[in-house]
C-alpha cells in the first residue's frame, strides 16, 4: 500500500502549519527572578553607598589627564598589536620553514618571550636604559661608528612598545602557526601544482584561509592587550590610563573610585573591540559558509518583521 502518493507535477498539496503547545520552561522564569533580585540589591548599593564616589567619577572621567591616558592606552594597544601581528606571522613562518636555522631561532624566541612574565619583561626593558647607557653601531668587538644614548633611543614609550609587542609576537606566532596547520594539505598541493612557490602559496592560499582560525583568538589577544597596557607601570610609563587614574586617586585620597573609573573606560573600549571583532570574523567566513550570519542590525530588523529586499 502506498503510504504517501506523490502529487502530480505542477500541483501542490495544501500546506498545513503545525499548531502545537510549546514546551514550558518554568526554570527560566525562576532563574530570571533570582537574578533580577540580586541585580536590584547591587544597584541599590551602588546608588546608596557613598563610598563608590560616583560624583568623583563623574567629575574626573572626562578630565584632561584621563582622556590623554585613554589615548595613550589606545595607541599602545594598536601599535603593540601591529608589532605582535607582523612579527608573529614572520616567526610562525620561520618556525614552519624547512631551514633549521630559521626554525630554531623562531623556537628560541617563543621560548624566551612566552616563558617569562610580561611584567618582568617590561621592567627589564625599562632597565635597559640603566644597563647600557650607550648603544653603538660598528664592527662587532671592533671600532664603533655611531653611538646612541639609550635614554633618547629608548624612551619609556618605546620600551613599553618593545615589551608589549615582543611578548605579544610570541603568543601571536603560536596562534598563526595553529592557523596555518589547520589549512588542508590539499590546498598547498593544489597551489604548488599551478606553479606557486612556497611563499606565494602561503600568501595567496594558506594565510587567507588560516585567518578564519587566527581572527577569533587575535580579537581575544587585542582585548587582553588593552588591559595588559596597565602593566607598563613597571617601566614606568606614566602617561597611560591606569597610572593617571592612580595618580589622581592618591592625590585625592580616593583610590577606589578612580580604579572604578578606569574600569569603566576599559570596559567601554573592550566593548568597541568586540563589535569590530564580530565584523572581521564575518568577513573571513567568506567561502566557508554558504550564507553569512546576519549582522545584529539585520537580526533586529527580521525580528520586527521587516524583510530585506534581497
Amino acid at each position: 500500500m502506498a503510504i504517501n502518493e506523490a502529487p502530480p507535477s505542477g500541483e501542490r498539496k495544501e500546506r498545513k502549519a503545525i499548531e502545537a503547545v510549546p514546551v514550558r520552561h518554568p526554570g527560566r522564569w525562576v532563574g530570571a527572578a533570582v537574578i533580577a533580585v540580586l541585580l536590584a540589591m547591587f544597584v541599590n548599593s551602588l546608588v546608596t553607598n557613598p563610598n563608590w564616589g560616583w560624583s568623583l567619577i563623574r567629575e574626573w572621567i572626562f578630565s584632561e589627564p584621563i582622556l590623554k591616558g585613554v589615548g595613550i592606552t589606545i595607541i599602545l594597544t594598536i601599535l603593540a598589536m601591529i608589532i605582535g601581528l607582523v612579527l608573529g606571522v614572520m616567526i610562525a613562518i620561520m618556525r614552519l620553514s624547512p631551514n633549521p636555522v630559521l626554525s630554531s631561532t623562531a623556537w628560541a624566541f617563543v621560548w624566551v618571550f612566552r616563558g617569562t612574565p610580561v611584567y618582568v619583561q617590561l621592567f627589564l626593558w625599562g632597565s635597559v636604559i640603566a644597563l647600557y647607557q650607550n648603544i653603538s653601531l660598528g664592527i662587532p668587538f671592533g671600532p664603533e661608528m655611531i653611538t646612541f644614548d639609550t635614554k633618547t633611543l629608548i624612551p619609556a614609550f618605546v620600551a613599553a612598545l618593545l615589551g608589549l609587542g615582543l611578548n605579544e609576537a610570541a603568543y601571536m606566532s603560536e596562534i598563526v602557526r595553529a592557523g596555518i596547520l589547520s589549512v588542508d594539505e590539499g590546498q598547498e598541493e593544489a597551489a604548488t601544482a599551478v606553479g606557486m612557490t612556497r611563499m606565494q602559496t602561503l600568501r595567496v592560499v594558506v594565510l587567507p584561509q588560516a585567518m578564519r582560525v587566527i581572527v577569533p583568538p587575535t580579537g581575544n589577544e587585542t582585548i587582553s592587550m588593552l588591559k595588559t597596557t596597565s602593566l607598563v607601570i613597571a617601566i614606568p610609563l606614566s602617561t597611560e590610563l591606569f597610572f593617571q587614574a592612580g595618580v589622581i586617586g592618591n592625590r585625592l585620597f580616593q583610590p577606589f573610585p578612580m580604579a572604578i573609573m578606569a574600569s569603566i573606560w576599559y570596559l567601554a573600549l573592550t566593548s568597541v573591540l568586540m563589535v569590530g571583532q564580530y565584523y572581521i570574523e564575518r568577513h573571513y567566513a567568506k567561502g566557508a559558509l554558504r550564507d553569512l550570519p546576519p549582522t545584529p542590525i539585520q537580526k533586529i530588523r527580521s525580528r520586527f518583521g521587516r524583510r530585506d529586499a534581497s
Partner: protein
Amino acid sequence: MSDPQVAPRSTNLPEVMVKAESVYKAFGRNEVLRGIDFEVHKGQVACIIGPSGGGKSTFLRCINHLEKIDAGRLSVEGELIGYTQRGEKLHEMKDKEVAAQRRSIGMVFQRFNLFPHMTAAQNVMAGPVVVKKTNKGKAQERALDLLDTVGLGDRGDSYPMQLSGGQQQRVAIARALAMDPDLMLFDEPTSALDPELVGDVLDAMKNLASSGMTMIVVTHEVGFAREVGDVLAFIDQGIVADSGPPDELLSNPTSPRLREFLGKVL
C-alpha cells in the same frame, strides 16, 4: 610480466612526453613504487588502472614532484623532474626551479582542492596572476572563457561551496588549463563524485583529449579508458604489471592479476 614499454599504436610516434625508468619510491619502510617503467608520447591519453594501494596515485604525484623519487629517472619533455644533471652528478632543484617546472604540468585532484576563499573565476585566475604575473583583466577574461569550455560560463562568481562536486571538479580542470600546460595529470578525478555527476566531468576530459592535450589519467572508469585512452597501464604492487592498447588489454587480459582485477571492477 609483459613488456613494460607501452606498446606503440603506430610506428612513427611523436616525441616522448613523459619517460619513467625504473622509478622507486618508499614511504618509510613501505615500498610503494618498485621499478616503474612507463612512456607517454605527445598528444596521447594514457590511462592508469589498478587496485588501491598499488602505487598509481603515488606515481602520478611523482611526475610533478609532489613526491620525490628515491631511485630511477623520471623526465617530462626530456627534462629531469626535480633535478638538474651536471656531468655525472644530479643536483636538487631549488623551490623556485621546481615551481617553474610545474607550470607546464597541470594537475587535477580527487578531492578537487579548489581554494574555498576564492570564486570560481578567481580560482582559475590565481595561477596566471600570481605565477605568470598576467594582467588581472586579461586573466579574468581567459578564466571566464575556460569556465565556458567546461560548461560553467555562468558560474564565475560562485564560491566552491555553492557548487556541486561535478561543477567543482570542472572548475579545477579549468584552473589547471589556465597555466597553458603541455601535460595534464588527473588523479582519480571522478572518484569523489556522485554517480550522476561523473558524466559532465568525463565529457570535459574527452573534449580536452580531442583537442590534442597529453593526458595521464588515474581512473576507475574503465569505459573512459577504453573510449578515450590511447594506452592503458595496469599498475599493481608498485610496477607496471601490464600495458598496451586499451581495447586489446581489456578484451583479452593476458596477465592473471589484471584478469582478477577486471573481474572485480567490471
